[in-house]
């Protein structure tokens, strides 16, 4: 039980468990750890509230239907699990909105700037994941372990791009 209360697990334990969890997903659900398609489904649900005929006419959403499926539930489970993990290692989890030190050192203490760049980053992440047909879970983790060419190309491109951006943005910090 002390193990569950630790704030962090060594990388090899977390990695090994991710591998085991993916095996379980392949076996029990005939699917793999993945996240991003759910955001398309959720977007279709939101658009469907105001313009259902647009959703019905959209070729992509005819294929990726606005339904709650296994992966949708998985995405809902992630924050619950992350909260439990954090809560077990401390008395209370603060949702303070305080900015990370590394962010403050580069961008200062403005909350507005954090939100603006955060949302911009989120849009890029969402768009990139749809364009590449996967994200860090579906492509890097689950596609990577299957030695899928598409996934290793995605992973390489993602790391090159992020590394260059990190150099440009953080080199003076």
């Amino acid at each position, binding site marked *: 039980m002390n193990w569950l209360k630790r704030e962090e697990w060594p990388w090899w334990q977390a990695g090994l468990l991710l591998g085991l969890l993916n095996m379980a997903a392949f076996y029990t659900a*005939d699917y793999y750890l993945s996240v991003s398609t759910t955001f398309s489904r959720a977007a279709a649900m939101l658009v469907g509230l105001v313009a259902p005929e647009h959703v019905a006419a959209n070729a992509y959403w005819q294929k990726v239907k606005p339904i709650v499926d296994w992966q949708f539930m998985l995405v809902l489970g992630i924050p619950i699990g992350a909260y439990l993990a954090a809560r077990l290692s401390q008395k209370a989890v603060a949702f303070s909105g305080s900015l990370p030190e590394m962010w403050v050192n580069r961008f200062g203490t403005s909350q507005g700037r954090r939100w603006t760049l955060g949302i911009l980053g989120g849009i890029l992440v969402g768009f990139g994941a749809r364009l590449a047909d996967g994200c860090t879970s579906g492509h890097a983790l689950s596609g990577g372990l299957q030695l899928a060419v598409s996934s290793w190309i995605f992973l390489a491109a993602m790391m090159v791009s992020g590394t260059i951006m990190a150099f440009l943005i953080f080199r003076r910090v």
Partner: protein
Amino acid sequence: MGPLEITGTARLFLGLVTGILFGFILQKGQVTKYQKIVSFFRWSDLTVQKVMFAGILSGMVGVYALHEFGLVNLHIKPTLLVANIAGGLIFGAGMLLLGF
């Protein structure tokens, strides 16, 4: 043989449990933290690299072993060179800005 066929509400519940475990492991592995994600791209702290590659390697051995026994199907996404590269480039930049 082949993977289990769980359907309906049980399948949704299974997804939720899988997600809770996924979030739990990611949090304990520290890869949900801004500092770790930014350090991943600055190569100043290799936690994310290590967790990711340990996850890929252990899953690779495990899933292909299960596949050898006919217990799982593989789900390999098609290679779309331009889309995979462009999507990856955009994704990486966004991930650095967002930090998660």
